[in-house]
């Protein structure tokens, strides 16, 4: 077996295949299918300071090669997580990363400070790119001053690995990436979902209660790949790539474009075993290409 380990700042991953926030619950749901210690890491469902009910049903619409969602960060809040969920999952032998959310900078800090106390959470993913909430979320991630303000504040409250999750709903994502790098981010992950919508022509009504939602799945892969490539050239910190990854070839494309690791998201809804197949597929690829380490692939695009 080739060396599949990669490093994201202080975070050592046994392989570069991680699960994307919002698509794998709090890891227990995936652990009902297989032992999650086989994964590179898990980005847990986004957490806010207090309980959020999320948006009204319907929150999902199937679209060609993908889907729209408008969940709206339904979660029970950081205190509930710490008291009820964290004790059950903290000994999983894979890095568990908390996706931090808030409506204001103060709320982001409130969650971050509580997460900072959790010994078995080695990193956070600062979510400044959720398209489905009215306040906060993507509002911070679509301008350099907004992204800088949250990153700066959270950086000062957190001393472990800080990853910032970027929105693709911007003119130039590499500018936002450079802005958060300048404020001390240890890595960036991209892309979150693209704002989209779907209409039922017969009823003339939107398919989502919120009218618009976030598009994910293979439909977005070429755009996500392009954005990861652009960002990887613009920043020095590690990039975690995601967007429509369904198989090992997709994951390898993101690594070649410059991602140090990938997140698998919507693919889990089709088959929760896909990430394990990807780990195996990357290993086979390295053997076939006589490479001994996955690090040889990162940024290996031949121009």
């Amino acid at each position, binding site marked *: 077996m080739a060396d599949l380990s990669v490093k994201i700042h202080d975070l050592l991953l046994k392989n570069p295949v991680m699960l994307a926030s919002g698509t794998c619950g709090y890891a227990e749901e995936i652990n009902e299918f297989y032992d999650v210690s086989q994964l590179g890491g898990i980005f847990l469902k986004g957490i806010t300071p207090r309980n959020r009910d999320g948006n009204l*049903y319907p929150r999902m619409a199937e679209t060609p090669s993908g889907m729209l969602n408008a969940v709206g960060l339904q979660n029970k809040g950081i205190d509930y997580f710490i008291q009820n969920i964290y004790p059950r999952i903290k000994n999983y032998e894979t890095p568990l990363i908390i996706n931090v959310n808030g409506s204001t900078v103060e709320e982001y800090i409130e969650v971050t400070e509580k997460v900072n106390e959790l010994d078995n959470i080695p990193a956070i993913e600062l979510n400044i790119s959720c398209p489905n909430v009215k306040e906060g979320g993507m509002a911070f991630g679509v301008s350099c001053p907004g992204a800088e303000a949250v990153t700066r504040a959270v950086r000062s409250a957190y001393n472990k690995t800080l990853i910032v999750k970027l929105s693709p709903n911007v003119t130039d994502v590499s500018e936002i990436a450079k802005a958060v790098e300048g404020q001390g981010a240890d890595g960036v992950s991209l892309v979150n979902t693209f704002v989209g919508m779907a209409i039922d022509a017969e009823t003339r009504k939107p398919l989502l209660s919120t009218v618009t939602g976030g598009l994910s799945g293979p439909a977005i892969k070429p755009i996500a790949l392009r954005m990861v490539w652009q960002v990887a050239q613009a920043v020095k910190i590690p990039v975690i790539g995601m967007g429509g990854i369904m198989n090992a070839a997709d994951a390898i494309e993101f690594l070649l474009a410059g991602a140090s690791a990938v997140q698998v998201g919507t693919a889990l809804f089709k088959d929760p075993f896909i990430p394990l197949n990807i780990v195996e597929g990357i290993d086979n690829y390295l053997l076939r290409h006589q490479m001994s380490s996955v690090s040889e692939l990162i940024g290996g695009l031949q121009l």
Partner: protein
Amino acid sequence: MGKKSVADFIITENIPLNKDNYLIRLKSPESLPPIKPGQFVNIDIKNSSEIFLRRPFSVFETDYKNNSISIIVKVLGRGSKKLTEVKAGEVLSLVYPLGKHFTYPSPGDKVLAVGGGSGLAPMLFLARESGLPAENMDIIIGARSATDHIDASAYNKYGNIYFTTEDGTLGTRGLVTHHPLFGELANYDKIYACGPEGMMKAVAREAKKTGVFCEVSLENLMACGFGVCLCCIEPTVNGNLCVCTEGPVFNINDLKWQI
């Protein structure tokens, strides 16, 4: 860990039941885990850009000797349409077993099970599994017209089967709740319903009036089927819950239905 699986099932039969319902029987490559009435499977209807997500189907019958299950598929949209075109020998990937099952009746209970359309599948499954004598189990099956009905005569030994049709071509004319048995609901210990939402709400309304225990099976749109996407939520007295993991079976007292 290991409670849920993803497995490639082989289609052994695809039998048209009437103009838009099909019985599909599938054989598991592995030993079948226990599956109970109300639980479902999530089926990948092959790679097609238009049908990206799996489609959930309530289990109709289990056959542990042959590691096989069956489902009833009603053509509703592009996914179910495509699924009804499968042929014996083809392979389909299933995520299973998913969801919570109906509460089993207690010995001696008098039960009314109400099924509409393909919603009769879990009702007949429950009748067979309930362990109750047939005289304690009344089953009402509703449809638009006689030609929409599915032959359930094989289940006569598990309960007394009654029909309703909106046009009066079979059984009592009208909706399921127009059946005379709904005039005697206080005789029952448990009422179960599965079918279109309007039908289940009508049953729930009558059950609530008499205060009889009542469970319904919801079919909200789902993406994952195992509790991670949070798309199929239903507002309940305990907040927004995933129909796929906290349901699909709910007690009507836990739902926030305006009935």
